[in-house]
């Protein structure tokens, strides 16, 4: 997958795979859960990549691997061309930082706000006490936290304020990349847009690159520059935001987009009208993982796994509908008939 711009990607993943071994009970047989399955990803400086997918499709697992918090079973993550395991924890933490979903568990209840935000500075020995305090105050102002809360504890803050603390902590060492895993899904609707707008402003001010992970397309519609749709551990479609919303290709993307139009998107997992439930990642369907729910499946989808088909102008789609007949090993009419 090659982008339209020719600058090198700031972050890149190749063949990223994560499997977990599940053992049920003492004597139960071991099963393998495929959380992420050979995923490729590249991210360019200044991009905001929205990764969208249902619960359990491996979004958080992917984010942990991109953050270097979990080693991939296979594949490699590179930041600035260097594999993350070679970067070293301290240096890595200054390149990429997370923002979490749950503002209630993301802050240590026993620490003051000031000490939470200044931890990265203290840990890396940046500045002296006075300059650190200044830095913290400045960052608090940037994320819209009143300076009087500095001496307070997380329990005294609202959900939105806690999320601002989380953001301040992530940005205090000026990382290049910020990975937000469901940054607003635990917040009130009224607060959500404030936080999203702030993330947008911070990106422009601090020259950041974002990955925003969500199950809700509405979150990334106005924020992201590019959308990647994830299904059962793979990115099944990737396109620039406008093109994606204007002309979604993958049947799953279309179903997701339709669900955005329903009033129920705030309920967490969108009702996709796809009938069958999300497949069990410990037992993925053969062929195309989406075929049991796909309205457009045709002969062979339950046997032959699709390959990524690049789209003109960037992005790709992973569906046999778009494969050339030779690649799909199918006669042409089958495809045209289904479309």
């Amino acid at each position, binding site marked *: 997958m090659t982008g339209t711009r020719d600058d090198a990607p700031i972050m890149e993943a190749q063949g990223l795979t994560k499997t977990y071994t599940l053992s049920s009970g003492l004597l139960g047989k071991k099963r393998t859960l495929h959380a992420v399955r050979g995923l490729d990803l590249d991210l360019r400086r200044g991009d905001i990549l929205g990764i969208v997918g249902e619960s359990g499709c491996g979004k958080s697992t992917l984010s942990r691997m991109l953050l270097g*918090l979990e080693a991939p079973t296979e594949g490699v993550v590179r930041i600035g061309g260097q594999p993350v395991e070679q970067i070293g924890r301290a240096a890595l933490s200054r390149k990429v930082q997370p923002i979490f979903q749950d503002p209630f*568990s993301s802050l240590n209840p026993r620490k003051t706000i000031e000490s939470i935000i200044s*931890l990265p500075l203290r840990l890396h020995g940046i500045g002296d006490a006075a300059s650190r305090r200044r830095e913290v105050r400045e960052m608090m102002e940037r994320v819209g936290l009143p300076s009087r809360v500095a001496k307070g504890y997380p329990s*005294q803050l609202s959900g939105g304020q806690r999320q601002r603390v989380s953001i301040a902590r992530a940005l205090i060492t000026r990382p290049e990349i910020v990975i937000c895993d469901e940054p607003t899904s635990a917040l009130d609707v009224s607060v959500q847009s404030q936080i999203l707008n702030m993330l947008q402003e911070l990106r422009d001010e601090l020259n950041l690159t974002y990955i925003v992970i969500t199950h809700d397309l509405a979150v990334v519609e106005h924020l992201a520059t590019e959308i990647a749709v994830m299904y059962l551990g793979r990115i099944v479609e990737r396109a620039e935001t406008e093109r994606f919303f204007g002309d979604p290709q993958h049947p799953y993307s279309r179903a997701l987009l339709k669900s955005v139009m329903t009033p129920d998107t705030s309920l967490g997992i969108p009702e996709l009208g796809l009938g069958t439930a999300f497949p069990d990642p410990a037992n993925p369907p053969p062929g195309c993982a989406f075929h049991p729910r796909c309205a457009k499946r045709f002969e062979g989808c339950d046997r032959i796994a699709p390959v990524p088909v690049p789209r003109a102008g960037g992005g790709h789609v992973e569906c046999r509908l778009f494969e050339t007949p030779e690649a799909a090993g199918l006669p042409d009419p089958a495809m045209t008939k289904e479309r």
Partner: protein
Amino acid sequence: MTTAGHNATASEREESIARRRSAISRYLGHRSLVIGGVGLALLILIAVFAPLLTWHDPYMQDLTSRRIPPIWHGWFYDNPKAGWLHPLGTDPLGRDYFTRLVYGARISLFVGFSVVALSCVIGTTLGVLAGYFGGRIDAVISFIVTTRLSMPVVLVALAVVSIFDGSLQVVILVLGLLLWDRFAVVMRSVTLQIKSQEFVTAARAVGCSNLRIILTEIMPNVANSLIIVATIEMAVAIIYEASLSFLGLGIQPPLPSWGLMLAEARPEIFFAAWMITLPGIALFLLVLFVNLLGDGVRDITAPEGRA
């Protein structure tokens, strides 16, 4: 509560009663904390300042003044021997009972704190390591805990003491090396719970080492559970010491251990029951205060008591 006037509606009144009840229960929670804390602090002060509280020597025998009854025997039974010189009487060797009780508090408290310190270090280390790292480390540590749990404390203590002879040090060592299981089990589950919180992941993402995460992110959040377990174990240790000493296998005479005093007073039970009751009450109060303190800490740190 001010709305509970004559014009208050029924539901308002109910609400105010409920509010008052929750206020009372909160007060009760604090009361056990206060009683336990103050009581224990008082006993600690008594133990520390024992030499200032009494003019007798706890080991000084005086065969001319044996078995003097406590002062109230003078008041109620007109016993001429009772007097202010020995307000709580003397034992069969003529040693001042008040003095021995006061010095006995030193032994009980010293044993209690030392055993808890030792077992807390062992148990917390094992529990936190098992909970934090999981996997094979957890399996090994859980096996050690199970092994320990399958050993009856009293039998092991008796066996060890009969080999090495009882003494203060041996009692502390044996109990400390035996009573860490609750620390390990509780700390493991608390650590597991805290480890899954996102602030621990955030600390890792920021570049904190495992040691730093354990010390600065996990430990401050286990402190409450630690205090609660510590009070339970302290009470247990104090009772075990008294029991071992009572059986003659713990602290050896002439040290004024309360358990030993109970044993020494056993032959006197029909003639001078107070010789049994006094160390019994002392032991009871100490254990009660320690337990109240633990209850109080648990009450004020219970989820609904938190802001």
